[in-house]
């Protein structure tokens, strides 16, 4: 009786043990694959974030360069008042106004650019003075400074993969 029971147990264990082993192996494989997938997703999101930050950093550096260039142009326009060189510098400013500045400027700098641009036109038509132009240049450069101090452009939040 005892022998028969023992044999039954042996048979049962002989059946269950491989099943448990196979299930264990399958769970292990599943865990490995899930872990790998998670790692890939994490790496991709980190690469995405790094790309966003690199892009934001490049844009910020470009913004700094453009602001510096516009500040120099505004300074030269003031310095060359009454000089024939002023016309060329104004042309350079207009090129920056309709060109690279559009890529990098924020709303406040855009408004200051418009004010300076309109003041230049007023100055040429006799509606403005050198002092008013200086005040506008000061306002423009202060707006650029505030924009830079406000930090670089923040990367847009994107959904993780």
């Amino acid at each position, binding site marked *: 009786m005892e022998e028969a029971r023992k044999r039954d147990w042996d048979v049962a264990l002989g059946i269950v043990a491989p099943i448990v082993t196979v299930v264990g192996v399958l769970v292990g494989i599943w865990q490995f694959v899930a872990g790998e997938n998670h790692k890939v997703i994490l790496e991709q999101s980190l690469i995405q974030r790094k790309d966003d930050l690199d892009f934001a950093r490049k844009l910020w550096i470009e913004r700094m360069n453009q602001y510096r260039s516009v500040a120099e142009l505004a300074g030269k326009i003031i310095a060359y008042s009454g000089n024939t060189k002023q016309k060329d510098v104004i042309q350079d400013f207009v090129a920056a*106004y*309709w060109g690279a500045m*559009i890529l990098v400027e924020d709303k406040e700098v*855009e*408004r200051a*650019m*418009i*004010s300076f641009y*309109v003041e230049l036109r*007023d100055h040429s038509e*006799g*509606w403005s003075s050198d002092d*008013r132009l200086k*005040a*506008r240049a*000061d*306002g423009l450069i202060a707006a650029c400074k505030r924009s830079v101090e406000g930090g670089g452009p923040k990367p847009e939040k994107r959904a993780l993969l």
Partner: protein
Amino acid sequence: MNCAVSLRARLWRGLALKYFIISFGAVWPVLAFAGSPAEEAARNLSGDGSREWTFKQIRKLMGAEQNCIEGEVYKFSSDKSLMIEQCLNGKISQTKHVWSIEETGPIDITISIDGSRYLLLFKESDKSYSMRLRTLAESKLTPTIDKEFSRPKD
């Protein structure tokens, strides 16, 4: 001896006080009535009573009725009222408005006409004064709109 020194000191004090009063009396009115840029702009606009600024000269037709072809004249008064005379559909129409002026920046004077705000600019030439009501562009792609008025020199 002490009495003479005391008398001299009192005389000096009196003299200093007199000079202070005279110089204060001379400087104070200048400082008090110099006026801010906004007040100066308001004076340019309306004078002491009222001034007419022409956007377009009103051209009237001959006839019994007040017929017209075109024109728009703004009459600014120092009591902050504004009368706009316009030629609309061949008839002259008059509308009453209110205006106010404020400084909105280091060099910006803003005029508000019935709540509509414009930058205010003046220019003087040999024969006339000119004035601009400006709506500054909000972005580079929208235009800055100037409405230009003039009035002859007195």
